[in-house]
């Protein structure tokens, strides 16, 4: 498998804060790649660097062999990278259909002046966009709500709409930032199926996720980020048994035994201490 996205020696500092240090990742073509790590490990920063929202302090990001340095977010999107956001960012006052059609912006072939003159092309292109938008909504089983306002959707549906909108940019690589955050068990299972289907349609997927069951169930390969460094990479089984990963999530074995009911106190990263991932930590045999 050839690498479609490659991060080489990526660092990102915010003032004195070293959020990412010498991160190397290769996202292979096809399949689903996962990036996990405790809260504040720098996962979303990785996505912000890839999509051009932030420049890296050092290192090179290349996509299909092309260096992305200095390219603006909309150019990177047109190169074929789309993303969703951890905190959903829909166009809330627009309808579902319009939200998805915004994603098709760069694919409509009438120019800025052409839209005034050549009405035949304009009409056929708009129709194509509408049809494609409906198709993408139907992938997410949202087509019956196409004319509703995005703001009125349930939380789970908003996430799905964001996915449909990202697909509308016709990406080769899809970045998902915590796609199931805040979803209930049913919604998670449903979305898992939909992501599998999307992957089956040939999109390469790179996702950040906290939910271990979800990540372990979907991803062929997983990298673990902790304090800005990649500490492990491999298949789900290897990650689950990696002592460094267990340490990152649960703390060291030689930590003082805790007295509280949480089971974990000092020495452990905040994600576990704060109770964000307590029920889905990657202890061996935990997968359902």
């Amino acid at each position: 498998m050839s690498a479609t996205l490659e991060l080489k020696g990526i660092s990102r500092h915010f003032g004195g804060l070293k959020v990412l240090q010498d991160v190397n990742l290769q996202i292979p073509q096809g399949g689903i790649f996962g990036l996990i790590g405790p809260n504040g490990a720098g996962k979303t920063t990785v996505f912000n660097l890839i999509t051009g929202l932030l420049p890296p302090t050092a290192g090179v990001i290349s996509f299909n062999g092309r260096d992305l340095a200095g390219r603006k977010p909309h150019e990177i999107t047109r190169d074929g990278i789309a993303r969703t956001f951890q905190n959903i960012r829909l166009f809330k006052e627009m309808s579902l259909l319009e939200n998805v059609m915004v994603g098709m912006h760069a694919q409509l072939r009438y120019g800025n002046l052409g839209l005034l003159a050549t009405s035949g092309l304009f009409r056929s292109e708009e129709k194509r966009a509408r049809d494609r938008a409906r198709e993408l909504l139907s992938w997410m089983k949202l087509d019956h709500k196409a004319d509703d306002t995005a703001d009125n959707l349930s939380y789970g549906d908003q996430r799905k709409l964001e996915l449909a909108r990202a697909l509308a940019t016709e990406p080769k690589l899809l970045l998902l930032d915590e796609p199931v955050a805040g979803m209930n068990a049913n919604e998670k299972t449903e979305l898992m199926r939909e992501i599998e289907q999307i992957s089956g349609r040939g999109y390469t997927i790179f996702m950040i996720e906290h939910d271990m069951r979800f990540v372990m169930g979907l991803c062929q390969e997983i990298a673990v980020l902790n304090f800005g460094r990649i500490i492990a990479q491999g298949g789900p089984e290897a990650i689950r048994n990696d002592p460094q990963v267990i340490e990152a999530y649960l703390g060291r074995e030689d930590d003082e035994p805790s007295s509280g009911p949480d089971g974990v106190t000092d020495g452990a990263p905040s994600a576990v201490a704060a109770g964000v991932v307590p029920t889905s930590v990657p202890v061996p045999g935990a997968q359902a």
Partner: protein
Amino acid sequence: MAGFDNFWAVYSNLVLGLGINALLALSIYLTLSCGMLAMANAAFMGIGAYTAALLTMNYDTPFIVSVAAGMAAPAVVAFVMGKPTLRLSGVYLAMATLAFGEVVRIVVLNTDSITGGALGLNGIPQSTQWWHVLVALLAVLAVLWRLRHSRIGRAFEAIKEDETAAGLMGIDVGAHKMLAFVLGAAIAGLAGTLNAHLTFFIGPNEYGFDRGVDILTMAILGGINGLTGPILGGAILTLLPEVLRGFADFRLMVNGVILVLIVLFLPKGLWDPARIRGWFGTKGGKTA
């Protein structure tokens, strides 16, 4: 027919004022619909008015040439000034554009030899016919209607709602903001040109801060959800002084109170399709 002639003799300026104010309201609607609070439209109107009037008076150009120049000059100025300022957001853009308006006014004041300084320009040929205003308004409406229902209109709205997300949909945010700004300037220039060739006289203070606020008020009052709002707002602000003639000295005050009430209680403006549908007890449907 005599009755109409009478009416026209008395009110023709008012009726044409409706059209010109509608153009001005539409010019600021364009930038507002792209999420920018740009307050330079009065200045662009002035640039257009002076450019066209000077051409007509000094070079005896055909009216159509003056109109074209009156639109092109503010558009070019908007392009040059938009380069550095459009990256500003919110009140900072408003401040920068307001300052620009003052610069324009003071430049006009101090270039006596060309612009007549504080005395303004006198004896501009009254070339504007009623149908010029009508054609201009219809043409602008047609263009804006087409824009609104194309990928550009969707891009404007997406930028208004979430600039970052819009960029990641493949939309060139900077270029679209520039387009809205330049086009708005051209429309304001058109209004200024028509107005100058109607009123015989123009002076620098016509295009100052007060006018800028007036233009903004028209759009906000009418509502910026569609093309109807700005026209409605323009009409009301044109007619209000006439209707309130009886209040004589209190006219401006009553004017202001009405505006405050509307902004407080109808924040989306008078023309809000969702609210109007609510009155008639129907739900859903499409917006204009």
